[in-house]
């Protein structure tokens, strides 16, 4: 059901669209940064770095919308949870954008030297975390807690790939000190991807809170109202 106040409804819609704009942009940034690395396309890498400004501007706009909704509309219940979720989500999304920028920067550096090895695990990690971000955003749009739950376990695979890749790169570094700078940069990229997975997990947890009003973070902590 729609709000009696159409303005309120419009403002909530505007907030949702701003979040989706940020989400869509950072998803694209991850994909482009990866392409810049794998296809050695430095122009694309530079575009990723530039698009961060749009994300930063939208982050400020989203925060502003949240604050004015809180101050002027005194939201309650699901609206309140939606706005609180948006306010926190936007920080995670912006950080994902920053990490995509970091990947692009390392790609630019790596592209100046001959390839160390064919990229196999890094793109696999990248598509896994992109899928997490995408699902978390879809769950947000569709207010679908079950879909958000599918994101929660998904970073186990990302972590595994990260460990595996690190071991492999370590052998490159031990074999030949000249490999160290490139291997280190690839290790960083893997770490950035792993961090993106963590942010996607945060978003999914917030979406579950938004849908159900239950905090699923830190399950070991006992909370008020728990039996």
């Amino acid at each position: 059901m729609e709000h009696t106040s159409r303005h309120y409804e419009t403002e909530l819609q505007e907030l949702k669209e701003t979040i989706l704009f940020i989400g869509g942009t950072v998803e694209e940034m991850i994909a482009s940064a990866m392409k810049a690395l794998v296809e050695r396309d430095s122009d694309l890498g530079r575009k990723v770095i530039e698009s961060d400004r749009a994300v930063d501007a939208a982050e400020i706009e989203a925060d502003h919308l949240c604050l004015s909704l809180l101050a002027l509309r005194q939201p309650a219940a699901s609206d309140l949870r939606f706005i609180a979720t948006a306010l926190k989500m936007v920080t995670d999304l912006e950080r994902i954008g920053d990490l995509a920028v970091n990947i692009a920067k390392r790609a630019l550096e790596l592209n100046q030297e001959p390839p160390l090895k064919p990229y196999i695990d890094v793109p696999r990690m990248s598509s896994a975390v992109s899928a997490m971000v995408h699902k978390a955003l879809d769950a947000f749009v569709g207010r679908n807690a079950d879909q958000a739950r599918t994101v929660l376990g998904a970073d186990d695979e990302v972590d595994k790939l990260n460990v595996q890749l690190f071991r492999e790169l370590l052998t490159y570094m031990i074999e030949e000190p000249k490999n160290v700078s490139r291997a280190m940069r690839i290790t960083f990229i893997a770490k950035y991807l792993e961090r993106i997975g963590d942010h996607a997990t945060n978003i999914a947890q917030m979406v579950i809170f938004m849908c159900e009003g239950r905090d699923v973070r830190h399950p070991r902590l006992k909370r008020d109202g728990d039996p």
Partner: protein
Amino acid sequence: MTRAVLAAPRPRIRAAVDPADPGPGTRAAKITFRGMGFSYPGRRALSGVTLDIPDKRVTAIIGPSGCGKSTLIKSINRIAEIGTEVKVEGEVRLDDQDLYGPGVDLVDLRRRVGMLFQKPNPFPKSIYENVAFGPRIHGTGGGAELEAIVERSLRQAALWDEVSERMRTPAMELSGGQQQRLCLARVLAVDPDVILMDEPCSALDPISTARIEELIEELRERYTVVIVTHNMQQAARVSDRTVFLLNGSLVEVGETETIFTNPTDRRTEDYITGRFG
């Protein structure tokens, strides 16, 4: 940070609540409604209301116009029936007394259950007489005892400092906010158990409203307060429990924090988020 700090319980929003208190939901009920129905001639105001109002807590009643909020609280001090025929079904109890049973002393009931109205309604008498009137008709002698009651009640209503020098001034010369606090002092002077408030701030400016809300916060330590309000933010600010009524039926009742962050019923959700009403 030590492990103990990390494991500490989350702070509650309302810090004034005693942490050992099991919460309003588990307190003894002061007022109980069981299958209560209430009809005026040709109009049914309430049906099948079953509700416990906990002792020494603030309970807010919210709902759209005509949902039966006022009738519900006015059934507690039995003023809903004044000047009209009414039909009451089920039970309303205050402590253990059946309020619609035989032999209810209405004068005593209305002393135990005081009420504040939408518009302050002081008597056209002096400030002093407004507060002294109740204790006097309930049998308190004059002199020092009465003066002590008047002072204590005015202090409790946070009005003493503003009026102590002009007790003989007509009450009508006070501002609206002061008049409402005077009416509260008048209620407190007869030592009630329950205080009902029917939109007590709707005619007041924001500062006067904040003062009344501040008083409600203090009153909950000694009295059971039931407040009807159209202002949902006010219900959220002042109450421990919130009751949502719709078309004369109780839809949902729960702790205020829960009702305003995660209500169970779709209709409650739609109402408090402004989707109807």
